[in-house]
Each structure stands twice: as structure tokens, then as C-alpha cells.
């Protein structure tokens, strides 16, 4: 299978550099899969999971990380993904993240209530 040079970059470092057979990123318009010789593309990425089939030592390997918002630039001879941050799954502290998620969704609910209340006061319904 043919491959294309693929780089995953954050402001602080190059997270991955190698040959990829396929790169799948979550753009604001939905998932976008990029194969070698892709037509030039520049897209905005949402926070999501970046997946790629990369050329490993012997066979192709699955490369999967969570990324912050960013950009993907695909050219026929290079794919560059530039994101704010990269989180490897093995680095995720499940208990801590659950706690953060709980706090965030509680804050979300609270502000939704406040919003509904304020709307009620203003419009009466």
C-alpha cells in the first residue's frame, strides 16, 4: 500500500512523524479521511480522535490519539496535522477525568438553568 509523509505537530513538539497509509481527522464538517495523493485541503479540526494507519517496523500499525482543536493540511505529498494538544489514551487518568467531566456538566446544567430563568424573566415564557 502506498504511503504519504505524515506529521502530527503541537506548538511544543512534533508528536508523530512517519509514513501513513490513511489519516482520519474530525473536521468541523465531519470526519475526513485522507489517503496518499489527496487533493490539496486545509480544514479546521474539532477536538476529537485522530486516527491513522501508519507504517510500523514490519506491518502497518494503528495510531490513535485524542486531540484538541486545530488544523489539517493535506497535500498530495504530505499530511500535516497541527493541534493545540495531544492526549495519548494510556496517559488519561480515568478517575480524575471523570471528576472533571462531572464538574463541567454540573456547571453546564447550572448555566442552562440560569439561562432559562433569565429568559423567563425577560419574555415571560
Amino acid at each position, binding site marked *: 500500500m502506498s504511503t504519504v509523509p505524515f506529521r502530527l505537530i503541537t506548538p*511544543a513538539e512534533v508528536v508523530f512523524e512517519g509514513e501513513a497509509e490513511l489519516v482520519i481527522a474530525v473536521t468541523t464538517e465531519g470526519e475526513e479521511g485522507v489517503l496518499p495523493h489527496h487533493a490539496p485541503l486545509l480544514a479546521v479540526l474539532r477536538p476529537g480522535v485522530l486516527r491513522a494507519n501508519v507504517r510500523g517496523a514490519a506491518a502497518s500499525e494503528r495510531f490513535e490519539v485524542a486531540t484538541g482543536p486545530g488544523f489539517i493540511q493535506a497535500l498530495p505529498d504530505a499530511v500535516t496535522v497541527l493541534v493545540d494538544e495531544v492526549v495519548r489514551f494510556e496517559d488519561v487518568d480515568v478517575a480524575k477525568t471523570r471528576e472533571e467531566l462531572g464538574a463541567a456538566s454540573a456547571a453546564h446544567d447550572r448555566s442552562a438553568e440560569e439561562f432559562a430563568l433569565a429568559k423567563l424573566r425577560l419574555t415571560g415564557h
Partner: protein
Amino acid sequence: MATVRELRDRIRSLKNTQQITKAMKQVAAAKIRRAEAAQRRARPCAEAISEMLRRLSAEVSESSVAHPFFKDGNPAAVPGVILMTADKGLAGAFNSNVIRAAESYAQQNHGATFYTIGIKARNAVRRMGQSEHPTWTLAGDKLETARAVAARAGEDFAEGRISRLVLISSRFISMMSQKPEVIPLLRVPRHFVVSPAGRESEKPQLRGAVEFLPSPEFVLARLLPKYLEFTIFSTMLETDAAFFAAQLIAMSNATDNAGKAIDELTIAMNNARQAAITKELLEVVAGAEALAG
């Protein structure tokens, strides 16, 4: 003339100082390598951002972009200045050179609103009379700090509280030389969108060649804040490296000067000791002669 004991005490205290400056020199040498490595790691990101901006520049015209970073700022307001220094001193004139550059910039522009990164910058701006200003340290998570600074200053620019935004920091020219530099940040310099005249011929070829999702304008609007953040971030890395270079030189000079002073004092001490011995000998001889006589 100082006594032998006084001179010996001064030499001992100088040797202690020399040990400290020598240790600081070695620490600076180690840290500068780390700071330079961090700068190298950030370079691919700079290249990626500028390449994306170049591609976009072929596609969008100035008028089609509604982003506030592309509009002239409020002319009635004062300029915003991000002043960046190190947190610590003991690096020669490193911090004061940057601070002086900022003072003269503020004077030329009849005032400025400061955002400071680095404790030395914070103290300097407080002395200038802006005791309550947004301020961050250079140490800590640099990416997070850069994001916070970019968000705060970007918002002030977009809402017309500052006329433009510049970054005043130290440029790492070489190990021996660091110079203060004023980098314009906002509004975004025109050449980012409108390519220089020489490249005008490239435009038709590039136009339409790249597919932008969802649209060139949207991509640009997302990329501009990133560009601002990243410029601040990479300048922080540069300030780090430049600071340790300045500290290395300052501490190396201090160590040499202490060595020279120790040599001079040692000679003075030996002279004093010899004078005392000679004087004692003379007294003994004189006494013996008196007895013999």
C-alpha cells in the same frame, strides 16, 4: 594599610562569591541547552502555521475577511504592549535593556497599556505607575500563559481598548548578544494576507487549487488567534534561551573579576605579611644589638 587578618577575611568572602558565580554559570550553561532544545522542538509548528497562512493568502482578499484582527484598531486608544522579561535578574543588563526599550516606546506613543510576562517586567511596569495590569510569569506552563495573554490582549484590541498590539522582548542573536526588539502583532500585518507584489503572479495558479473546509475565511479566522498565541509562545522560549545566555556571560565575567580581585588581594596580603615579619626581625636584631652593645 589593611592588616593581614582583614585581607584574609576579604579573600575568603570573595572566594565564596566566586564559588556561587561559578555554580550559577554552570547551571546557566545547562539550562541554555534545554531552552535551545525547546526552541528547536517548536520550529515545525512555526513552519506549519506560516505555510497555512501562505496558502490562505492566495485565496482571501482583505475585504472578505471580517475578523477584527484584520481591521485597524481604535486610533483614539493607546497602543497595547506585551512586555516580556525574565523572572530573575543576575544576567547583566538583560532585563533593563528590554524595559528601557518599552519605556521609550511608551513615551513615543504618549502612553501604553501594558501586559507583562516575567516578574522583572511586572515590577518595572508597577514602578511606571500601572500597578494593576494583567501580568504573568515566564516560568510555568508557557503554552497556557501564551494562550491567556493572547486571549486578553486580543479581546482588548477587538473591543477598541488598544490601538494596536506590539510585543517587546529580547532577541537571541548569539550567545554574546541579545537585543531588545519590538514585534508588531495586531492588527495582523498586511503581508500576511496580501502577498508581496513579486508573488502576485503565483496567485492565479494557487487560487482554487486548495479546498478549504468549511471556507477560507473560516479557516483564517481560526488560524489568526493561533498565530498570535504561537508567536507569544515562541518568543517566550526565545526569552528563556536569551536570558540564560546573558546570565552565562554575566556570571562568567563575575567569576573572572572575582579571580582578579583575589589575586590582587593575595599579593597585598603577602606584602603586608612580609612587612610585618621584616618589622619583627628588625626589632629582634635591634634588641640583640642593644644588649650586645
